[in-house]
């Protein structure tokens, strides 16, 4: 009995995975359509990006300020407090920027995308669109997907920038570390190719994952109020877990400590 339940759960999740793969392919096939409907995609960048700005900026600022306080506390023990800028910048650019911005993006924009598409399905708007010979994948899904992919790296970059600014406020202005060593050490230690580019790669990958999960869950939500709420929750949970898992995998590939 239990075995059968496990079997059924496995089959259904494998089925879902296959579904998701086919769906991703269909969305990618509609990429040109999204480019042609540039105005729609810009609108979605506005909805997923601009409207997430406040939460991203405020969180970035606070994360940076806390990092500075905690980092200063540890670094002074080793007499290395002029490295505060390096510590903060590397943590943000490599990890916290993409990951925390990704998590915030999933709960702010991802859930909104899922709920919107799910409700459009529930109220037969997608059905009506199909009857008007307009493909909802091209008109509704693709612009939201690509809008999310564009917004996410920008948000992550803003998050890191705000974080560094927050660290500057706390470290230099409040605690009184020398501004020259704060910025100078940071510039010397942060490598464009290995730190910044890798951070951008991460945020792009997270953007793809979150956007894909969000549109998939919305498009395949059961067309009821309950179905939409379940789908929204699934988006947040699945996106967050994927971000953390993908972050681990990407970090392993980007790791240079073993001298590879």
């Amino acid at each position, binding site marked *: 009995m239990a075995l059968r339940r496990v079997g059924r759960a496995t089959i259904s999740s494998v089925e879902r995975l296959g579904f998701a793969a086919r769906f991703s392919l269909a969305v990618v096939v509609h990429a040109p359509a999204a480019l042609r409907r540039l105005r729609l995609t810009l609108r979605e960048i506005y909805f997923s990006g601009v409207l997430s700005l406040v939460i991203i900026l405020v969180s970035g600022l606070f994360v940076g300020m806390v990092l500075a306080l905690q980092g200063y506390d540890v670094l002074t023990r080793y007499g290395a407090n002029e490295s505060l800028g390096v510590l903060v910048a590397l943590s943000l650019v490599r990890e916290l920027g993409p990951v925390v911005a990704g998590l915030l993006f999933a709960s702010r924009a991802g859930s909104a995308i899922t709920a919107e598409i799910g409700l*459009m399905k529930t*109220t*037969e*708007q997608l059905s*009506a*669109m*199909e*009857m*008007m*010979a307009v493909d909802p994948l091209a008109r509704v899904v693709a612009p939201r997907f690509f809008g999310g992919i564009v917004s996410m790296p920008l948000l992550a970059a803003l998050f890191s920038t705000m974080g560094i600014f927050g660290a500057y406020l706390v470290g230099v202005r409040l605690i009184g570390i020398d501004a020259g060593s704060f910025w100078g050490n940071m510039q010397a230690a942060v490598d464009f190719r290995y730190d910044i580019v890798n951070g951008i790669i991460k945020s792009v990958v997270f953007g793809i994952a979150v956007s894909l999960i969000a549109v998939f869950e919305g498009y395949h939500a059961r067309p009821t109020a309950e179905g939409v709420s379940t789908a929204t929750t699934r988006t947040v949970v699945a996106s967050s877990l994927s971000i953390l898992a993908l972050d681990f995998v990407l970090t392993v590939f980007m790791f240079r400590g073993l001298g590879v």
Partner: protein
Amino acid sequence: MPAANPAVVAPTCPTEIAVELAGVSFGYDRNRPVLAGIDMSIPRGKLVAIMGGSGCGKTTILRLIGGQLRPQQGRISVAGQDVATLDRDGLFAMRRKIGMLFQFGALFTDLSVFENVAFPMREHTKLPDELIRDLVLMKLNAVGLRGAAQLRPSELSGGMARRVALARAIALDPMLVMYDEPFAGLDPISLGVVGQLIRKLNDALGITSVVVTHDIYESLKIVDYIYFVSEGRIVAQGTPQEVRASSEGFVRQFVDGAPDGPVPFHYPARPLVEEFARAG
């Protein structure tokens, strides 16, 4: 009442039939068929009503005609084309010539009333903005809502939303329009206006129209032919005169609005006594 109107069922030329269903059966799941062998034939330029109790499968018939569902048995053809054989592009090409009013309006909630009606024009034509504006206002005027053009769908009443959806359905002057309950939720005045509008569109533009409705009085006034559906089958059909004169049980029950008769009011269930006996 005759089994079928000979002028309707036996046309001289097959392309004169806009929509044809032959032996169509369909069920959302295997155990419970919704439609069991529906035959219908709708000539070009006619206004035909499909009537039947709630849940008898009227909306399902429209979805089958539009190719959103595939019949498990039987054949559906629109303008001589077998819908089941069409691929996605073929289906979309066919749908460009079809307008559909959804039962609950299905207006796009992120667009204004104006943009909702403009939507099919913007998607399928390259008309200049001024022309689209004029066309949209004309369509909205026809349903009496030109003044509501800038409202959001959330600011409309149910009846208003349905009229906007009607304007959207006819935006591209389609060759076939399917109306799913165009009269539900309308006051007697709008109801009369919408009924006349459907009739006028049909005649002036040579559209073929399929109206799904419960409103027997309004239908008798405007339509050319009526099909009655019950338990997945066509149980009666005829012109309005034939329907009025009919003595058939189904038809009388509809015309007189009696709860008892051949059309079951209840969804299939165990007898009520048995149900209570179990609970107790």
